[in-house]
C-alpha cells in the first residue's frame, strides 16, 4: 500500500512539473511589448517574403528590433525548411502568406505590388500562390 501511495505521489509531482514546464513555454512564446507596440502602431509590417519590414521612417531602435526578429525567423525557417525538404525561400514565402493572413486590423502588411497596406476586416491582398 505504501509503495503505491509513493508511486502516485511521484507521478503527481512529475505531472505537475510537466504542466509548469508547459506554462513556462507558453509564457515565453509571447511577443516582446516593444514588438507588439510597433506592430499595432503600424511602424513595422509583415512582408511577402516572410520577414518583418519597417514602414515609414526608420530609427536605429526600430531597425535593431526588426533585425533581431528577422534573424530569429530565418533560423526557424532554415531548420523547418530542411526538415520539410524545402528551400529556405520556399518556407519563408509560405510563412509570409500565413503571417499576412494572420495580421489584425490596423496592422501593416505588404501587398503583391510591394506597397504597404493597412489590414482591415477584409481579407488582405496576397500573392496568388498563397494558400486559402
Amino acid at each position, binding site marked *: 500500500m505504501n509503495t503505491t501511495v509513493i508511486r502516485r505521489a511521484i507521478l503527481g509531482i512529475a505531472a505537475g512539473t510537466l504542466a509548469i514546464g508547459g506554462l513556462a513555454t507558453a509564457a*515565453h*512564446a*509571447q*511577443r*516582446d511589448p516593444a514588438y507588439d507596440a510597433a506592430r499595432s502602431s503600424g511602424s513595422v509590417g509583415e512582408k*511577402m*517574403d516572410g520577414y518583418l519590414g519597417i514602414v515609414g521612417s526608420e530609427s536605429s531602435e526600430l531597425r535593431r528590433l526588426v533585425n533581431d*526578429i528577422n534573424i*530569429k*525567423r530565418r533560423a*526557424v*525557417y532554415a531548420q*523547418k525548411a530542411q526538415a*520539410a525538404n*524545402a528551400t529556405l*525561400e*520556399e*518556407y519563408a*514565402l*509560405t*510563412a509570409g*502568406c*500565413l*503571417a499576412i493572413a*494572420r495580421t489584425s486590423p490596423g496592422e501593416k502588411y505588404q501587398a*503583391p*505590388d*510591394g506597397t504597404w497596406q493597412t489590414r482591415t476586416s477584409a481579407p488582405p491582398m496576397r*500573392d*496568388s*500562390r*498563397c*494558400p486559402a
Partner: protein
Amino acid sequence: MKNPRLTLQGPNATFLPMQDETSGIGHGCLETGPLVSGPLVSGRRMAAMAMAAAGAAMLGGCISVNAPDKPIVIELNINIRQEVIYRLAEDAGNTIEENADIF
C-alpha cells in the same frame, strides 16, 4: 534536238563543282553564280528574297513587341511553385504558432 543540248550542258554542270572544290566551299558558289548567268539573276534573287521577307512580315511572321504602359510588377521568387507552398502551409502554420514571440 534535245539530246545535243543536254550533252553540251553536261560538262558545264560537272565542271563548276570541281571549281568549287579548288576555290573553297561556300565561297565558290557565290563566284559561279554571276559568271554563268550574269548580275541579272542575282538581282532577281535579291528581289525574291526581299519579297519573301516582306511577305513574311505582312503575314505576321514577325512578332512586334510593345512596351507595356502599366508599371511592371516583379513577382517575388517566381520560381517558387504554388504546390510547394500548399505542401508547406500546414507545417508553416504550426511553426508560426510554436514561435508566437517572433510572429
